């Protein structure tokens, strides 16, 4: 395969998954800038390792697998990163938040309280828009377990958000 051909081939496979990946990354990290960095890194890694892809149909699993690994690596590193700097913290300007953003932020906060598998399943299903079958492929588990995760995740999320959501909509 030619270099240009490879690029075209990759982009063809990637385009339908772009928004899903972006949503997934943003909702997992809760920060749009970091999410964009993660997406670009995922894309680069996926492009480099494209030769390892055996089936076109499993590209999304391949892509999300890379993204998941990168997220894990990022989270592992986060534990050991730097000391808290009060000066820097004071200089950070809070983003102008609308009521909509507040609600989304609340959602993310609630999602963070869920177990990682449930959180991931919910994000992939609700925000990224993947089907249960696809999520089962990404998470490497059965459809029934994904269904159970989604149900339990929703229940927990409802419990967490019940007083806050009502306040937000009032």
């Amino acid at each position, binding site marked *: 395969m030619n270099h240009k051909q490879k690029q075209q081939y990759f982009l063809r496979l990637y385009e339908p998954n772009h928004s899903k990946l*972006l*949503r997934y990354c943003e909702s997992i990290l809760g920060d749009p800038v970091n999410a964009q960095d993660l997406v670009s890194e995922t894309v680069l890694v996926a492009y480099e390792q494209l030769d390892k892809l055996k089936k076109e149909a499993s590209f999304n699993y391949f892509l999300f697998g890379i993204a998941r690994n990168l997220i894990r690596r990022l989270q592992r590193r986060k534990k050991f990163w730097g000391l808290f700097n009060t000066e820097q913290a004071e200089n950070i300007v809070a983003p102008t938040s609308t009521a909509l953003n507040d609600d989304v932020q609340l959602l993310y906060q609630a999602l963070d309280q869920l177990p990682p598998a449930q959180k991931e399943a919910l994000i992939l299903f609700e*925000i990224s828009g993947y089907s249960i079958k696809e999520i089962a492929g990404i998470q490497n588990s059965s459809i029934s377990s994904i269904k159970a995760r989604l149900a339990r995740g929703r229940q927990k999320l409802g419990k967490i958000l019940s007083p806050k959501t009502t306040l937000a909509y009032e």
Partner: protein
Amino acid sequence: MNKDLNHLFEQARKSMESEMPLEEVQKLIHGQASPSLWTNQKIWIMSTSIIGILTIGILCWFNSNNTPTAIATTETSNESSLLVQQNKNTIQHSFALQEATADHIPLPILNLETKTPIPVTLAALETNPEANFIAKKATKLDSLGPKKNFTEYKLEIKKENSEQEIKKLKSELANYGIHMDVKILTYDTNNKIKRFKGKFKTDSLFCGSTMNDYEFDISGAFKSMEFIFRVADDKNLKYLKIQSENFEETIECYDDEVISSSQEARKISRLMQEEMANTQREMANAQQQMANAQQEIAKAQEEMALLRKEGYTKDKIKRFEVHGLVNWDKIEDDIEKAMENIEIELDDVNEDLMKTLDNLEVIILDKNFKEDMKVLQKDLAKMRLDIEREVIDQIKEPRLKEKASKITIHRSSDTRERTVEELKEEATAMEEAAKELRRSAKEKRKRAKQKAKNK
């Protein structure tokens, strides 16, 4: 609830839609350069190395299938030397080389352990060969670790003659600085020991310290009892085991303690060696000075003999005086130096000094040396008297009476006064030396006591 959640998720989806356009990703991918030269090089290196390995493998395989290459023999036209020509007729030995075939038999594992105990004859064995006293040189021991040499002694006491055996054991242990005190507490009807109590004491070090009052109490009947004690090369007890059917007591030095004690012992021995070396050096110096003094005396004696032989002349007196062939000061200095460097026996010192030096232990380094010094002093005194007499005799001659009398009178009076004074000086010097010795001995004793306490 579900509606609220769905709404929230929808909001989240909407908020993200225009964050990162796809064009950015496209740019990112298009910006990717073709595989770098390094990756190409890597592929080349990998491929060439694989090819190389393969070719070597094939060559080896090919060679193994072929017949082995014969050893090429080339005749060189060496000019035969004279020695070779002479030995031309000697038979040349030819060796037929055979093809070696692998037998696949594993090589034997050599066991270099030598388990031959070195028997050590002990006093008990000489007196009574029936005693089961075995001594062997062991090279390995449980906690003492490898490479530590020690001698192991075993004694088995049987109930029939336990009293005698214990006596033997006591005497044998005493030879190695271990004192055992065993009391038989009870007897049974057949006069067999049922219970006894013992105590151990050592002069030598055990685990870096003296084993004072180590007690053992064995009760109950026993058929036989075994005492095992291991003594290291430095004659220090390292291991002691008492065992019978119903009793077992083991005390032993562990590695760390051995190491620490050995380190301490090494330090002490080093200090001792240094001190010994110093004293030896001092002795050597003193002996050298004594030899010098003896040489001086010999010279003086020679001069005396010459004087007696040739008769007294004015010139000879002058030569005698001016050139200082007999240098009294030098002789006396040498003797004094020699005396300073040795320790004195109290018997040699006068009574007054003895009184002051009561309750003192002065070490005599060399008795012979002391005696030599006494002889030397006597010789010196005799010589002085001889010389004085000689000089006086010569002065009595009428020709040189006037001039010589001046010299001799002065000389004789000087020497007499000097001898008295010098003897006094010597006595005081000896007194001072003795005091110093006393002080140093006290200090040494104090240090030794402190060391013992610290231990």
